[in-house]
Structure formats: C-alpha cells, structure tokens
C-alpha cells in the first residue's frame, strides 16, 4: 500500500542528493541546483503531509507554493550574486573564492 512513508523516503533521498551536490560541487551554479533539490525534497514532504497527516486544510500546499516562490527569488538573487562575483573575482568556483579566511 502506497503511503506517507514512501514519499518521505523519496524526499529524504532527494534531500541527501541535494546535500551531496551542495557539499561536493565546485561550481556555484551547481550548488544552487543542489539547494533547489533540497527545497523540492522539503516540498514533497509538505505536500505529502498535507494529504496524509493534515487533510483538513491546505496549509502544506500553501507552504509549498510559498517555498517555490521563494526558491525563485533565491535563485534570482543567488545567480545575480554569482554573476557579480564572476565579474570581480573571475571565477564561479566557490573553492577559489577565499580571500578571507581564518
């Protein structure tokens, strides 16, 4: 029987994939993609919980909608920052961006 747990497991795996991308990728754009995967994983949770755990209202879906919107904002701001950094620092690889440390 297909249930809540299935969705949660998929979400968890997706989250882990995103996490893996975030911590191992050098290119900042790919890191951003990883973050989007993590947000999507959370959204799967929200929508799944809305169906199985809180069917009476639609807060989960509303939450997911907001997250999607915010993800877009985040992407816009993030990519703008990446572009700006690319102009001054001439790289998009985050491990090369370390003037400041210690």
């Amino acid at each position: 029987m297909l249930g809540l747990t299935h969705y949660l497991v998929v979400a968890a795996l997706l989250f882990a994939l995103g996490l893996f991308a975030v911590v191992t990728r050098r290119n900042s754009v790919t890191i951003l993609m990883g973050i989007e995967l993590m947000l999507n994983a959370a959204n799967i949770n929200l929508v799944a919980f809305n169906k199985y755990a809180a069917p009476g209202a639609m807060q989960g879906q509303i939450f997911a909608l907001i997250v999607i919107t915010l993800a877009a904002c985040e992407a816009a701001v993030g990519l703008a920052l990446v572009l700006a950094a690319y102009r001054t620092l001439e790289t998009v690889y985050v491990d090369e961006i370390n003037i400041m440390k210690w």
Partner: protein
Amino acid sequence: MTHLAWVIPLLPLAAFTAIVFAGPRLPGRGAYVSIAGIVLAGVGGLIVLGEVIGGARADVTYTWAVLGARPITVGFVVDPLSAIMLAMVGVVASLITIYSVGYMAADPHYPRFFAYMSLFQFSMLFLVLADNFLFIYAGWELVGLCSYLLIGFWFERPAAARAALKAFVTTRVGDFSMMIGILIIFLHTGSLRFDEVFRSIQGGALTGPLLTAAAVLVFGGAVGKSAQVPLHTWLPDAMEGPTPVSALIHAATMVAAGVYLVARTYPLFLASPDHTALTVVAYIGGITAVVAATMGVVEDDIKRVLAYSTISQLGYMMLGLGVLGYTAGMFHLITHAFFKALLFLGAGSVIHAVATNNLKQMGGLARAMPWTTWTFIAGTLALTGIPPFAGFFSKDAILAAVFAHHPVLWAFGAAGAFLTSLYMGRLVWYAFAGSYRGGDPAAATASHAHAPHESPAVMVVPLAILAVFAVFLGWVGSETLGNPFGRFINFPGATAEPPAGTGAGLLVLSIAIAVAGWAAAGAIYVWRLVPSESLRRAAPWAYTLLVRRYYVDDLYAWVFLGVGGLVMRAAGLFDRYVIDGLVNLTGWLARQFGLGLRYVQTGREETYLLLVFLGVLVIVVVRLWW
C-alpha cells in the same frame, strides 16, 4: 621621683630628636645636647636608685591598646633590678658620651654619632624600665637597631657595613625565638605584663615542658643579644664600629641586656621543672665563657680581644644566673659594665694614638700615655679577678655559686678565668710593654708624625672615673662589708651558697687560677720561656682552629650565604618560571588553541557547508546516542 622614672628615657630621646632636626646648629654640634640628655638621665637614675634603696617601688601602667575584649596593659617598673640598671646605664653612658667628644672630634658625621648615641640611650633605658614583654621586646629591637646603625657608623667601609648587617640579622634570629616564647606565654597567661605572667605561671597556667620551652625560647633572645654560643659570631665583627660604641653597646649595656632579660624573667626560668631551663642557661653560659676566651688568646686586634673577653664574661653572667646565682650574675653585670667600658675606652685611647688596632704594631705605650696605661691596667686587673679589684668579687661569687650546683661547670669557669688572665696579660704586654713597634716610617710623616701621645683630657677623665669604679666597686658585693649588693638585688629561692667550708678554699683557688693565667702570659710573652711561636708549632691544628674561630663563621657563611643564597635564587627562579610560567602558559595555550582552531575557518565555502550538515548530524547523534 620614682613614679616619674619613665621620664628618664625621654631625656635622651629629646636629645636625639633635637639633634636629628637641628644637628650641627646645636651647641657642640649636638654633642653637648646629647651629653646633657644622658647626664640628666644618669643623675635621675642615681636618684631613683637612692630612693629604691630607701624602699621606694613603682609600677606605672596604662593600656597600650584594647585588642578584642582584652586590654593589653603595659608600663614601667621601678624595682631594685631596674633601678640598679638605670643607674649603671646612666653613669656609664654619660662617661662614654663625654669621652666620645674627644674620640670623635675629627669625624665628619659628628652630630649623627651623638644622635645615635642618644637614641641608643633612650632605647636601653626604656628596655630596662619595661614591665612587660611587649616593651622589653620593643626596647630590645630598638637597641638592636642602634647597634646596627652604630656598628655601621662608618658605613662607607665595606667591613663595617657587613658587620652591621651581620649583627642585626644574627640577633634577629635570637629575637625570632624570643618572640615565639612570648607568644607561648601570652597564649597561656593572657598577659604580657611580667607580674601577671608570673602570677599565672604560679597559678599553673603554664607548666611542664611547655614552660621550659617558653623559657628556653625567651632565653634564645638573650643568646642572640648577649652573643652567647652559638650566636656569638656577630660581636667580634661589631668592633668595626667606633670604639665608644663598642664600649657602651657591645660591652657595658646592650649585650648585657640578655642577662638582664633572664634576670627580669627569672621566675619563668625558676618555674621550669627540675630547673631544666636554668641548666640550659648555665651550660650555654659556661661553654661560651671558655670558648670565647680561647679565641681571645690568638687574636691580634685589640678590640676583638676585648670583644671575646666580653662574650666570655657574659657567659659568666649567664652561668651565674643559670646556677641560681642571681645576685652574683647581676653583680658581675654591673662591675663588668664599668671595667669593660674602661678597657674599651682605654683601647680607644690607644687606637686614637697609634691609629691601628693591631697589637703587634703597638708596644711601649706605657711611657707615652701613662694615664691610659694605668687605668687600663686597673681595668685588666678587675677583669682577671685579682683582688681587690671589682671583678674579683663578682667573678668569685659566680664561681662559688657554680661550685655549689654544678662542679663540672665550675671547671669551665675556672678554665675561663685562667684564659682570661692569659689573653689579658698578652694584650697588656703587647700594647704597653716593650718598645713601640708601629709607626711605619713612611706613614709616620703623614698624620702621626709624632710618636704616640696621651689623649686629651675629655677622654682621660672618664677613664679615670671608670677606673675608680673598677677598683672599688667590688666592695659593695663583698661579704666582708655584709654584701650590700646582695641584700639589694636578690631573688627569693635563688640562693647559691657553696658547700660549707669550701668557701675560703675556693676563694684561694680562684685567685690562684687568675694569677696562674698571668704567669702563663708572662712566661709566653714577656720572659718568652715558652715562646708563642713554639706553642703554635706544637699544635698547629689548635692554633688554626682558634684563628678560624672554630669554623663557626665559615659554617654560617656556608649555610646562610651559600645554601641560603641557593634557596633564595631557587625561589626566585621558581616564581619566575614555574608559578608565573603557569600563568603565562594558560594565556599562551588559549592563544595557541585559538590559532590552531582558526584553520577550521578555511575561507572555503565547501567546508562551511559541509560543517553545517555535519554539525546537524553530530548534534543529533551526540544528543540521542551518547
């Protein structure tokens, strides 16, 4: 004026204050003020003595401070013991101060000398009048301070400076012991006043070994101050001070304060079970009497010979007190004060004339300075116990008392008497007999162009007066005259009568011993039957032992300067590197820890991001499974 006796010490104090603030502008550049102070004090002392002989007594007390619920009362006591000391100090100090006018005439720090003298006189008189441990301790320290300042009077001489330091520190070791004794006494009797303390002890407040310990510890102070073995080493060095100082402080008064302390606190010693404390006193005194005398025999410095003699005589006094010869000990203290002051002043007169302390460079002074010579010889005879001079009576009384209680110690005393005659004879022959050996021709042209000559009257007159005392004072303790001294100064329960029938024999024996000493001196130094060189060759080890002063100084130097210095340096290094090192290490570690940790802050985003997730995992894992 017995009740006003406390004013007496204030006279020299006033003189001191005046000289300190107005020094050179005062009459006689301060000397006259100082003399006025002490002479007035001396007259006062004599008056008090007279009144006390007439039966007057006084004990003036007031509250020093209220500590806790208990007021600590202190005050001054006038009784025979303090009266006789008062008079003795006053008279001797007056004469010595007058003498100093001549002796110190050429010194650039003339006013300062008299200031110190006045301060000392104040302290000594204050000590004598004290009726409690606090004051006696205070006076004790103050006389020590004056001694320190006066030994180091010629502070620019390194030897004098070192001697001063040594004197103060060594006596302080004794004071340390005395303070502990006082603390024990206060703890058990709750008072510092002698009369209350003794009453409590009689009441059983302090008994047994602890009482003995307290008495011996108090005696420790006397050992230091009176230069008894083993704290005797400072006194010969103290001769670096001006000679009047040696006469006043290091012969007549301050060093005798130790004896006075024992006499003053005699009930404490008496109460000690089996007289243990007194036995300790007696043995220390007896040993000192002999040991110091032996060292005197090989000494060439005229003042040092007298210093050893002083130590030895103080040993006699202790010996006397220790064998219940209370009267005898005190009597010897008084007579000794006069004739030893006389001897020192005489030596000073000699030194003044020949500008050296070395006996080997004197000789034949009898012709040049007759007054000095004859007064000196009077003093010597008194010291060596030749009748009818003063020392004979007092020393004989001691020896009689010793014989009564400790025949073994009598042997010590007898040996000491023999040695006394020996070294004094040696001194007299070297200094006054024969022909003048000093006066290096080259140096003679400079300051002492002429041969030695007699000192000025201001120095000779005190010598003469003291000589009178040295000759006649003994009679006040003479049994033939009914021993007025003994009737005046005595302690109930402390009697030392020699066994019946032995009195006359002993008397003869002691005279014989003294004469034998003189004879030996004559044989060695005058007629050269047994020349000193041959003695030296016969027992070189003995000679070296004596010249090295039994290696005690060397031992102390090794222990206190060597080992003590090592400990001190070790403490300094320990503090700097271990204690402070730990403090700095803490700071250093924190800093290094921070320096090391900051490499976690790599500056690279991927580390940061990894640590976010790792952080979450770690916290969860730790919280749930650990």
